């Protein structure tokens, strides 16, 4: 199982990378950490005629966790973000939890945040976190310069995003979130892609939930905010039965698809369970 041939470029500046990308048209792929792309190359399911490796492009490997939020360069490795997040008190819990669900340490040492997001695997954890917390993707192209796309608009389907063929995702950012957050998922084995994952955020005064955010992964062709479900508990006092109502609303609000590992009915039902458990976790409301 070896990759098909391709032209390989490793530009040393963003400008150079953008020019290459503009010239090479629809058949070039960007290479970041390669932990999703290279398996596809090895299996020859992906056979781009050219690879543009962002490894030498300066400035994409910095992340900054501050009072005004988190800015993550596209080439920041999951493992290094894991470390910075662990040593910061302002980073949201759900981010820390989601990062630990990405593959295994050996994978997280190579995989990059930009690569993970741009690959847009519907079962992937990070996209759900960015959708839930209202993250922003910064895209750059040679001809049209820089633009920002809200995470919710960025993810468009299986492996499909708002990134135009000539654009590079250079940064992803998360605003600060005033409340508590949690990421909870069910996978068949530790480290597997989630069957269903839930990212939940809420500001809790006593047991009143505000600013509620819920996004799922593994329940459709892309991560989505579940606004109807959020409304069920927005401003409400959290209680066991409220959370059960919420779970029902979540199940009603997702459009999962069956695959080898779980049916759509299973994912629909368990989506509600995951959200309920995530909220139990942050609110302390017992089931």
């Amino acid at each position, binding site marked *: 199982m070896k*990759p098909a041939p391709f032209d*390989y470029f490793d530009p040393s500046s963003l400008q150079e990378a953008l020019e290459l990308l503009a010239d090479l048209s629809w058949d070039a792929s960007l290479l970041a950490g*390669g932990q999703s792309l290279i*398996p596809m190359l*090895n*299996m020859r399911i992906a056979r781009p005629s050219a690879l543009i490796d962002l490894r030498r492009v300066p400035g994409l490997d910095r992340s900054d966790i501050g009072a005004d939020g988190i800015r993550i360069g596209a080439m920041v490795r999951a*493992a290094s973000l894991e470390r910075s997040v662990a040593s910061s008190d302002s980073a949201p819990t759900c981010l820390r939890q989601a990062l630990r669900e990405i593959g*295994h340490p050996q*994978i997280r040492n*190579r995989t990059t945040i930009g690569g993970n997001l741009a690959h847009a695997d519907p079962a992937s954890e990070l996209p759900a976190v960015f959708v839930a917390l209202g993250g922003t993707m910064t895209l750059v192209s040679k001809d049209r310069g820089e633009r920002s796309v809200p995470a919710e608009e960025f993810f468009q389907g299986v492996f499909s995003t708002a990134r135009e063929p000539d654009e590079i995702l250079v940064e992803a950012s998360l605003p600060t979130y005033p409340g508590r957050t949690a990421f909870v998922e069910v996978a068949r084995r530790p480290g597997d892609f989630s069957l269903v994952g839930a990212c939940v955020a809420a500001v809790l005064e006593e047991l009143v939930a505000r600013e509620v955010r819920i996004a799922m992964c593994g329940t459709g062709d892309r991560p989505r905010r579940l606004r109807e479900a959020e409304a069920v508990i927005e401003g409400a006092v959290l209680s066991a039965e409220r959370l059960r109502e919420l779970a029902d609303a979540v199940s009603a609000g997702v459009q999962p698809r069956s695959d080898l590992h779980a049916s759509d009915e299973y994912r629909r039902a368990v989506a509600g369970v995951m959200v309920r458990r995530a909220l139990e976790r942050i609110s302390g409301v017992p089931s």
Partner: protein
Amino acid sequence: MTEARRIRLTVNGRPREVEVEPRTLLSDVLRHHLGLTGTHVGCEQGSCGSCTILFDGAPARSCLVLAPQAEGAHIETVEGLAGPEAEAIRRAMHEAHALQCGFCTAGIVVSLVSALRDGIGQDEAAEQVLGGHLCRCTGYVNIRKAITAAWKQGANP
């Protein structure tokens, strides 16, 4: 370009140079160009961990690295692992019967040695680090025994 590229990297402390197609996997560079066959290839899908090496000091799947990505990198393979941590892991695995067919062993040794070096906790090593490796023979039971022994010893050498 598709034609061969000259790649310079340091392997087990020695500067090496190979000329390979850019599509060549690091695992193949190590095994078939540099003769370091101790790194085994079990899936080329990034799942089994047999091909794990240290890439700039951190465990990584060498089947998920293209040769040019390793330009200038410091690579350590099972053949190159030395020092107290390496010997502690080897002894513990031998004494606990933590290997059978031995194919996945090299990758596990690499991951565990770096975990011991980096001061990773025993539970983290037994769950997260070992979790990145597939073994079809041992059921992992004796590998976890070996981890317990090595970490105990690592704590008070």
